[in-house]
């Protein structure tokens, strides 16, 4: 079963708008990570937020983490056509051996020019 569940499953926006997607998980975590996947390619690591952090920024990306609600959000500001991709959250469980991650089902984002 998936640890992380993303919402929405799909998102369509205009270039320049912000895109927000959410991730919920079930068990306590060490960290939560977001990955991007362009069509037909492997996943690319975007950002990691540790369980003791509440917010993190990287360029146009902003991630929040609420461990009390077991949820995270990824905000992409001023979106571009090149941001069209699927976005996945992944969690490293508190007792995960081998740095294992559990991935959610992903959010497909379409940015229209």
């Amino acid at each position, binding site marked *: 079963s*998936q640890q*992380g569940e993303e919402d929405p499953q799909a998102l369509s926006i205009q270039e320049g708008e912000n895109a927000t997607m959410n991730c919920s998980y079930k068990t306590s975590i060490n*960290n939560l*990570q977001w*990955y991007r996947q362009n069509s*037909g*390619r*492997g*996943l*690319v*690591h975007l950002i*990691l937020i*540790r369980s003791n952090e509440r917010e993190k920024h990287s360029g146009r990306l902003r991630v929040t983490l609420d461990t009390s609600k077991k949820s995270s959000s990824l905000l992409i500001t001023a979106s571009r056509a090149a941001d069209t991709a699927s976005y*996945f959250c*992944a969690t*490293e469980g508190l007792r995960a*051996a*081998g*740095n*294992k*991650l*559990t*991935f*959610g*089902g*992903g959010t497909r984002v379409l940015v229209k020019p």
Partner: protein
Amino acid sequence: DAGITQSPRHKVTETGTPVTLRCHQTENHRYMYWYRQDPGHGLRLIHYSYGVKDTDKGEVSDGYSVSRSKTEDFLLTLESATSSQTSVYFCAISAGLSYEQYFGPGTRLTVT
């Protein structure tokens, strides 16, 4: 680019045949992983390795075996392929300050 390659990139095989997928890394990372990606399921961990000859099962390991005889190579074997193993297979390594994962380009496997 974490120097991860996968071979083959595409393969079509028949039910019941054995198949081996190869993951190769060039930077001596300790941890390596095999995932499968299917519509509606995201990525699911099949097996992982934490060193030469040290491997463990993931979430969906039935029907799969792995081997790691050298640091740089992690092999995934389907002993007798079934149609339910049609999928895209990704290899990953764990690296960086927080052991984030870096993925290979994937292998698209079709079992007919």
